[in-house]
């Protein structure tokens, strides 16, 4: 519901008078303007950078390679100088826009070098160079929009580099399950302490917050995907060995570090985060430590439990919108279970009864918890959105 409609509703219900309504509206407008301006600036600059990438990708052969590279370097130099002065003069919006354009321009330029010299190196190498060399640049920015763009860049680079890293550490070894499990398990968790580096927290809170949210979102996604291990048979030569110890060490380190990473967080929310990390490791242990046949239903139920853990932690954090999204995901996963269990009449019937009961339980819990949460948080609910 829009702010105007809400205010009209509150005024007609006698909760606020006309003057209060006008003051609230003016306050909210003043708060929103810079966010919209920054979002528009970064969006426009991002689009511009994407346009440059597209023009380069078209590989216009009307201009010789050396001329292309010279023009590219001159533009880069101009951008560097302009960005430097904008940042030094604390130019706010203009600085954010220039940083965003320079960020995208760097990737386009690396692609141009690859094109002019017909380099066939894999994409992840260029992305790694881009991400590493532009990290200090994006840390000059302060806006949420630029932070989101930079974190998306880091996430893509990381995702594309994981498999080459496994191959690099185990050349010619193919899919080494232990190495893959250890690297994939640690991948999102590594960013949790990185996002809470004191300098970042103090000077770039938007970047720190965005990186934290992205890291936990990656934990959610990977933990959910991990449960698909129950859909496969595990032969004796496929069981995990040393990676169970390595991942246990990573999980323990994160759990022990949580009070230092999030000192202001309510203890119950921290316990929720700790439970998430421990649960991820326990399911890895249970799913891949011994030879077994596939047990689909265990995977499906664990996925629901996993989403439930995140939903419970969201409540403890007062993140209403996240809680609502997670509840919807749980309902969707339960619906998917219906289709997974279709088979004989008996199994279909049992599956439908279980699924229906679970859906009702989710609905009941959602209604009960959100009502309680609304009462607890009152009008200052964080995380935005309606409770129900």
């Amino acid at each position, binding site marked *: 519901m829009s702010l105007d409609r809400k205010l009209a509703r509150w005024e007609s219900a006698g909760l606020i008078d006309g003057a209060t309504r006008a003051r609230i509206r003016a306050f909210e407008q003043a708060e929103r303007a810079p966010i919209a301006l920054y979002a528009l600036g970064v969006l426009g600059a991002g689009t511009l950078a994407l346009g440059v990438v597209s023009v380069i990708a078209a*590989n216009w052969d009307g201009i010789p*390679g050396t001329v292309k590279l010279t023009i590219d370097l001159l533009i880069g130099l101009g951008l560097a100088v302009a960005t430097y002065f904008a940042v*030094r003069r604390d130019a706010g919006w203009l600085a954010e826009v220039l940083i965003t354009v*320079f960020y995208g321009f*760097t990737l386009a330029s690396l692609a141009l*070098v690859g094109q002019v010299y*017909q380099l066939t190196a894999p994409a992840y190498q260029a992305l790694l160079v881009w991400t590493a060399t532009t990290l*200090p*640049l994006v840390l000059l920015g302060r806006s949420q929009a630029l932070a989101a763009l930079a974190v998306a860049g880091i996430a893509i680079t990381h995702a594309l580099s994981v498999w080459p890293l496994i191959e690099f550490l185990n050349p010619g070894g193919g899919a080494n399950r232990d190495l893959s499990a250890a690297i994939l398990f640690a991948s999102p968790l590594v960013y949790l302490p990185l996002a809470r580096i004191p300098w970042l927290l103090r000077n770039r809170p938007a970047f720190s917050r965005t990186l934290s949210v992205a890291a936990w979102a990656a934990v959610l996604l990977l933990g959910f995907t991990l449960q698909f291990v129950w859909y496969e048979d595990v032969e004796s030569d496929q069981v995990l060995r040393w990676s169970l110890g390595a991942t246990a060490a990573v999980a323990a380190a994160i759990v022990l570090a949580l009070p230092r990473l999030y000192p202001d967080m309510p203890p119950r929310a921290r316990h929720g985060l700790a439970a998430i990390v421990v649960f991820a490791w326990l399911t890895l242990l249970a799913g891949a430590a011994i030879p077994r046949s596939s047990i689909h239903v265990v995977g499906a139920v664990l996925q629901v439990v996993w989403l439930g853990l995140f939903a419970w932690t969201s409540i403890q954090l007062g993140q209403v919108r996240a809680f609502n999204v997670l509840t919807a995901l749980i309902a969707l996963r339960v619906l998917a279970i219906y289709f997974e269990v279709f088979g004989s009449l008996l199994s279909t019937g049992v599956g439908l009864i279980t699924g229906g009961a679970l859906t009702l339980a989710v609905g009941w819990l959602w209604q009960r918890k959100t009502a309680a949460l609304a009462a607890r948080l009152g009008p200052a609910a964080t995380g935005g959105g309606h409770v129900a």
Partner: protein
Amino acid sequence: MSRRATLVAVALPLLAIVLGIVRAERFLGRTHDFVFEVGGYDPRDLLRGHYLQFTLRVEPLPQREACIDDPQGTCCLCLTRAQPGQVSQIERATCATARTECDASLPLGVLAQPYRYYVPEESAKELQNRLLDAMPRSGARAVVAVDSRGEARVRELWIDGVPVPGAVPR
């Protein structure tokens, strides 16, 4: 942020671009050209957006001496330069022989590796069709720059004696 930190932050991306150019130029400076025939790449969709994909083809591959043909084996390609425009002489030999007695040596794996050649967007489709047409007739050739460490990069692509736009000049 301090002035120095800001300077470093804006200089690093430029440095990455410049180093990319310098590395590519240095590679060209220490290489020699060899001419290979070009073969199809499986799957046979040669056009990937704005570049053509293909493999380097040597069929049949003459054997200069016996060697072990597996990933950890001792087989290499022994390259000998030919007259300008002619396909280079390429034989299978032990890596030791290829490194000491040939003009250049390459790992055997380069024959299975897909290569890219960036082409202008507007003529990409037409070039793909010409390449597809020329390959069975041995009409497509790649000029490959090879260095002493066994690194190879396609520098030029020719279809029926006509150069494809995008060649890297020396």
